């Protein structure tokens, strides 16, 4: 029997969408649904894990095993799921507050373990769900509800951080360009290892519609002149001040993933000593 061709529609759900009209996250959702269709991953083999925040509602909007978890913990839950079921496609998603503030520790260590999941961060530079407080990527000096005198802190650079930490796939997309973002998600999913996609996904309510224009004006799509396997080039791109890089910034292959390492350990252990059943382990207590 010919497999039925899957389309983006197959990944829609009936869960009502809570986002504001014009929210950048709609573009990300479309890109995810299109990417799933492109990858032809059956909905029952797709797991979408998110944290807390406006963007984290996305786990309910993709027809898959969706898990809208708790604040900052999308990555360890997604990693645990992938470790348990390496044959599944696992996506993690969330916002900049979720990933770069309360969840930073997990961001660091998921990169270190190279868990084979794709992490899509909808970076809008603001806490939207709690209605407009400063976030770790809010530019210095910006006025928000919790920085009435302007943001005193310098913003975090997630791309540079990921690169320093040894991430094996780093990309940046824009929710205003769904097709480009879809391709990034497809590439990220096909990457064996942790694929990190930071998405400029404007919050129209608390940062205004002009945020889209900022990305349109300053966004630079990386072309063939950029070699994503060249760490130094990637580093330079992550340090751009005015220009916003869009595309695959860095990608290396061959780094063992979390589930591969677990599998290797199982093989090594079982080569060393085989047990028929857990009862046989009793011998070690004699």
């Amino acid at each position, binding site marked *: 029997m010919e497999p039925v061709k899957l389309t983006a529609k197959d990944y829609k759900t*009936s869960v009502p969408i809570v986002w504001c009209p014009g929210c950048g996250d709609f573009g990300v959702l479309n890109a995810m649904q299109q990417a799933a269709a492109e990858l032809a991953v059956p909905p029952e*083999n797709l797991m979408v894990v998110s944290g807390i925040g406006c963007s984290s509602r996305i786990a309910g909007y993709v027809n898959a095993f969706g898990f809208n978890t708790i604040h900052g913990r999308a990555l360890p839950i997604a990693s*645990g799921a992938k470790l348990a079921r390496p044959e599944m496609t696992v996506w993690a998603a969330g916002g900049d507050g979720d990933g770069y503030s309360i969840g930073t*520790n997990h961001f660091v260590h998921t990169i270190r373990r190279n868990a084979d999941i794709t992490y899509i961060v909808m970076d809008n530079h603001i806490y939207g769900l709690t209605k407009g407080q400063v976030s770790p990527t809010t530019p210095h000096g910006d006025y928000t509800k919790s920085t009435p005198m302007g943001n005193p802190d310098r913003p975090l650079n997630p791309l540079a951080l990921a690169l320093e930490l040894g991430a094996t796939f780093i990309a940046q997309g824009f929710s205003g360009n769904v097709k480009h973002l879809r391709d990034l998600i497809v590439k990220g999913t096909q990457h064996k290892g942790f694929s990190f996609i930071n998405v400029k996904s404007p919050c129209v309510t608390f940062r205004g519609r002009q945020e889209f224009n900022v990305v349109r004006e300053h966004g630079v799509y990386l072309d063939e002149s950029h070699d994503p396997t060249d760490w130094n080039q990637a580093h330079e791109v992550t340090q751009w001040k005015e220009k916003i890089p869009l595309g695959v910034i860095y990608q290396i292959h061959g780094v063992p993933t979390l589930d591969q390492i677990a599998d290797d350990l199982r093989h090594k252990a079982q080569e060393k*000593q085989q047990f028929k059943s857990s009862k046989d382990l009793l011998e070690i207590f*004699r």
Partner: protein
Amino acid sequence: MRDVTLAIAGSGGDGVITAGDFIVQAAARKGLNAFMLKSYGPQIRGGESSARIRISDQPIYSQGDFVDFLVVFSWKDFVRFIDEIQLRKGAVVLYDEADTTPPEEFPIDKDLGVELIAVPFKKMASEEIKVPLTKNMVALGVIAELLHLPLDGIKDAVMKKFGKRKPEAAQVNIEAIDLGKKWVDDNLPDGTQIVLEAEGTGEPKLVMTGDDAVAYGALHAGVKVFAGYPITPASPILEFLSKWLPHFGGAVVQTEDEIAAITYAIGASWAGKQAMTASSGPGIALKLEALGLAAIAEIPLVVVNVQRVGPSTGIPSKSEQADLFQAVGGTPGDVPRVVLAPSDVEDNFQVAVEAFYLAEKYQIPVIILSDQFLGERSETIDPEILFARKRVIARQLAKPSDLKDYKRYKLTDTGVSPMTVPGMKGGQYITSGLEHHEDGRPTSSGTLHQIMSEKRERKMPLIAEESGFVRIYGDEDAELAVLAWGSSKGAVREAIEKAREEGIKVKAIVPQLIYPIPEKKLDAALKGVKRAVVIELSFGAQFYRYLRAYYDGLPKETYSYARSGANPLLVSEVLEAIKQHAGGMDAPQEA
């Protein structure tokens, strides 16, 4: 004596715990019962440590209140354990003659009339064996010869530890043991007044710690993903599973923090594999938000808390029973969960199996409340007993008929809804920490929240009915009862026996299921009881207050005996509490 308690105190480098381990293993090989409690200071190396070992041909329930036989490498180190090591009248005390403390300054009560013997442990190890580190092995030889411990069993244990990997080390250790024995033959031909007169059954027993037992129980129950973060006194669980789980097709992750540990486990379980995490009080505090997630998303999960002295960092290496409120009440919201309390090493294994059974059957987080006193002690165990109960089940999956218009949180009479795992076509659903409709869609409806709260709560009486194991010891028809939980069981059980020998009619009631309260079984156990004493190692009397708040069946006259932890519960203090409340009832009957 048929029941001897010996203690060895020294510095970390003295090999005190190693010597204790060998003694326990030797006893196990002979079919004797043994029990070892390790105690140590905060230093990683070189700090003081003590091993307290009780050996008997009778069942052993506690560490033994009084020490019959003491070995001191250094009086300075011994002083640190002076609270924990109470000598019996006429005890034998061996000390290293290398310690220059004058005998009149020995920190020992003169009225006890102990038999003091100076032994050149250090000298023999340094000058004759020429390996100063073998001091503990020389001492082992001395102890074994004086106490009549099975010397061949000790040598077997040494060979097992070093024989294959370090045959030279094994040889040197055995020479040291023989030297210690010879020293006794040459210098103390008449021995001492304390001798173990117990014959083992000859049937070898197993030696296990509580932490290993809970980890092994989990492995037997089918755990496939374990995630943990190092913390005293729970780290041995992480270490055990790191070593053995890969042999059984599982995976272990030492995560970046406590929250990652529990969330890894939640992710793995949601994906379809049995999962567990373990920690101690402070780490559990960090995990509690995620525990609520497992509860509302109805994800099977097992969480072990090896309690230690709190609050905060407290005394990490000592035991307490003061995380009860945290276990039954921690986490925001109304959180259905199960709390099980193992009461000895073997029970750690059984409770781990039971925890997975309940977690999988009822799709609920289960907390195992062990403690340092259980986790880090070693006990001898009969091999047959471990697998007697058949409670191992796999993930209970939704039937094909459930997948048509699938509702993950379908309202049912039992509160348990059909659960799918990834890969089941038509089984995909959205789940979350949000309150939800039957199909998992989020809601902010108060009506639905009430309905879903009721649905989740419906599991609880079924769990209480099915898993409400309550231990009862002593006189069935006693009007006086002691209520205890977890590791207090040992001292309580022994105290009950002592009280009965003294003519007091009394029974002990120890529930294994703490939350939900197994009401029917507790009611039955308390039938006819007019007075109860709740005994625990929690300064705030958490168990007493918990029973008061959650259980209607307590006798009107219910008293509390509660003190803070760190020092293990003594048989004598429980006996005292029993005697204090025994007045005016159940006078001994004339035969």
